[in-house]
């Protein structure tokens, strides 16, 4: 069964460093998303991406964040200068349609720890 994969499973970094979180969406999907969950808080939408551009982004997704689909398989989230409050579990998701009725398939997440 096709699945979304994410690497690494756990990333530890120093404050101010750049991190890149990687995701491989399901191969025939066209819509991609990043969510995050700070420990004990809600899963929060960060950004959606379609046709090589951002479709929608939340207030959290400021200039420190960027997304990219560098090739036909990977979808990345970059945080340029990490802050302590960026520590969270980051989930990637993909779907075959942008319509709200279509299921989003999630990866297992990357736990980011900023020291």
């Amino acid at each position: 069964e096709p699945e979304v994969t994410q690497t690494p499973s756990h990333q530890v970094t120093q404050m101010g460093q750049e991190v890149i979180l990687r995701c491989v969406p399901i191969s025939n999907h066209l819509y991609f998303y990043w969510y995050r969950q700070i420990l004990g808080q809600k899963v929060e939408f960060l950004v959606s991406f379609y046709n090589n551009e951002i479709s929608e982004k939340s207030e959290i997704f400021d200039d420190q964040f960027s997304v990219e689909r560098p090739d036909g398989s990977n979808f990345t989230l970059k945080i340029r200068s990490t802050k302590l409050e960026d520590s969270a579990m980051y989930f990637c998701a993909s779907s075959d349609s942008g319509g709200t009725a279509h299921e989003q398939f999630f990866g297992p997440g990357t736990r980011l720890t900023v020291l």
Partner: protein
Amino acid sequence: AQSVTQLDSQVPVFEEAPVELRCNYSSSVSVYLFWYVQYPNQGLQLLLKYLSGSTLVKGINGFEAEFNKSQTSFHLRKPSVHISDTAEYFCAVSDPGGATNKLIFGTGTLLAVQP
């Protein structure tokens, strides 16, 4: 704007007992409703969704949920749980008229099934 409340952070239950996980939402427009499950070290998996029509929705693994518009609730139920149902359960909504199908999640409920 939509929001989702899951009042129970953890629900302990004995094996073969019934369980109900509560979800309430707030929205000024009609919404689509979802329940996702996250097993340890895995991604979020869709259990069931309500889009329209019958208010009782059946999902995978014997779960069902009932949409109650007047109470703005979408509680998840299972008549008899198994040890393998131990997981984190997330309620989510999306806006059918939204630009993208971003999901808005609750904080999750940990279902802990004891033998």
